[in-house]
């Protein structure tokens, strides 16, 4: 009796295995459009991995693309910008989300594995420095003050707000930030401290930005940083601290990030497309769709759309895919 059970269990498993293998083989063959000649001929799976910051953007693009091309499945994973590049350069994914440009050593990995790619700019983000809603003295910080606050040497020594600016009260500093694996951390430390990854170590790190929101919202003397969408969604408990990059205090908003006046913490977001994957019509069509419908996609994912100049650049980058 037991053996019958096993036989029944094995049969569907074998069938699904065979079907799965067949489907896998089929995807690459479907590159040539069918005789029908309609857009509905596109099919297959597009595998995207990388930055969790960019993931909502690529998800929104995938969802809107699927409305028109029901046979194309866009799947998104979040291994982080660095983790995404690792898989991308091993040829395991079609597109890699990135919240910072590719690093030299990652480039070398891709080259060594023979993975050719094209960088495409897809949106802007404003790395927002935030404080508690009721905090009165944190209105605007210069980049120099931010550096005093976050520099590697500040670990254990800069502990009172008075040390950052003499006009601030003698209140204890409590800092929250993204974990060291995130592209956001790399970008912030590079923009403020001059070297990616260079940061004081005595802050509360979290891979989940909602944890940073809760931390800052719970302490009137706390400060943290993350992407603009988390600020917009939590405007009732936290506020933005304006940043002075040499041209006066600028608040992080969609406009300031789009025009580039929120400097140096306004950042572009990218996708990296493998040229081999782009040879598939579905991937090519998806990437074109991504750039062409940038306004709708960024709006849906609560990001900052490209400005006209960036859009021209993005269209040229899509063309360069061949």
């Amino acid at each position: 009796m037991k053996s019958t059970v096993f036989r029944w269990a094995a049969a569907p498993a074998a069938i699904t295995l065979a079907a799965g293998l067949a489907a896998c083989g089929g995807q690459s063959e479907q590159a040539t459009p069918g005789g029908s000649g309609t857009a509905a001929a596109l099919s297959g799976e597009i595998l995207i991995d990388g930055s969790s910051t960019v993931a909502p953007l690529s998800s929104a693009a995938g969802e809107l693309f699927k409305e028109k091309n029901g046979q194309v499945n866009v799947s998104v994973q979040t291994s982080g910008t660095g983790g995404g590049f690792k898989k991308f350069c091993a040829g395991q994914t079609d597109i890699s989300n990135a919240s910072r440009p590719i690093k030299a050593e990652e480039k070398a990995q891709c080259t060594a594995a023979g993975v050719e790619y094209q960088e495409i700019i897809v949106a802007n983000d404003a790395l927002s420095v935030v404080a508690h809603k009721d905090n009165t003295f944190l209105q605007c910080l210069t980049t120099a003050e931010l550096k005093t606050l976050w520099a590697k040497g500040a670990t254990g020594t800069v502990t009172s707000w008075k040390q950052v600016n003499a006009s601030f009260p003698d209140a204890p500093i409590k800092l929250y930030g993204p974990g060291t694996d995130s592209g956001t951390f790399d970008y912030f430390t590079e923009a403020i401290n001059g070297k990616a990854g260079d940061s004081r170590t005595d802050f509360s790190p979290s891979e989940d930005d909602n944890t940073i929101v809760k931390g800052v919202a719970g302490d009137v003397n706390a400060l943290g940083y993350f992407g603009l969408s988390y600020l917009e969604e939590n405007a009732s408990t936290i506020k933005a601290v304006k940043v002075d990059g040499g041209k006066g205090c600028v608040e992080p908003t969609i406009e300031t990030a789009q025009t580039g006046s929120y400097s140096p913490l306004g950042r572009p977001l990218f996708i990296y497309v493998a040229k081999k994957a782009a040879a598939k019509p579905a991937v090519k069509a998806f990437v074109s769709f991504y750039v062409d419908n940038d306004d709708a996609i960024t709006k849906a994912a609560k990001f900052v759309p490209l400005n006209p100049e960036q859009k021209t650049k993005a269209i040229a980058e899509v063309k360069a895919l061949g």
Partner: protein
Amino acid sequence: MSVDTRATIDPPDALEGGTEATPAVTLRAASHGDRNFTSMGFLVLLWLSLAFGIVVLAVLLVDTFIDGLPRLDSRMLTSYTSQVFPDRAGARAPILGSAFVITVTAAMAVPIGVGAAVYLEEFASKTSAFARMVELNVQNLAAVPAIIYGMLTAGLVVTVGIRRNSILSGAIALALLILPVVIVTTREALRAVPTEIRQGSLALGATQMQTVARQTLPAAIPGIATGVILSLSRAIGEAAPLLLLGGLVFVQYDPNGLLSGFSTLPIQIYDWSSRPQVAFQTAASAAIIILLVLLMAMNAVAIVIRNRSQRRW
């Protein structure tokens, strides 16, 4: 150290009655007899630690239910996740993904685990160095963190050439994760079958193989089933190894085979709860309720099996 394990089996059974009686007596002493300060204080401490656990759990559950229950409708079960409309996001793909992964996990872990346990318990010589080494390793493996199994599987499937973020890879990781537990619980279930049953079978002329297949194993099935279901409920709640393998956080199609990409409930909950939009966090609470109901259903099945078919020898 050639301890005959079988010989030590019966005494623990007999002892169990004794150990059960002892705490009852102690408790009675604390609540009626021993009214000195130390024992009353200790009792209060015990109650406090119990209350702490229960209160924290209750607060978490109530909070989740208040948040997620209004969101839990048929759309939550039948539609795919949505980035553009968070209010309409559903957990269809993760629910199906969890079901697929757990089924494949069980299909791999149960035969291998039960087979290994039967060998170790019924066939292997208790004194052989090999059996002892396997036993030691199984016990150690049970304590290895889940993420390690994810890393191991990632290396394995990439080498073999299986798609890394496929249902098959996920199931391999989870099967490896629960295998030690399945082996240990199966061995315990086999050990609880009285030696007399085996001896009776052998005395009537059955071979060792026939004895195991027709007497020992069927008698141990309730215990094995309970252990398997409980370890599967552990596997269904795992996110870390699957995330490492590349479980999808955004997927808009049903899993359609062993090599298909997938999401599971814990992965989707993890992703939704880290989103800025409140609508996603509410969806996460609703998905948590679904996962809780699934877990309770599985545990209930385990309890029913145990109570229905428990035999006393």
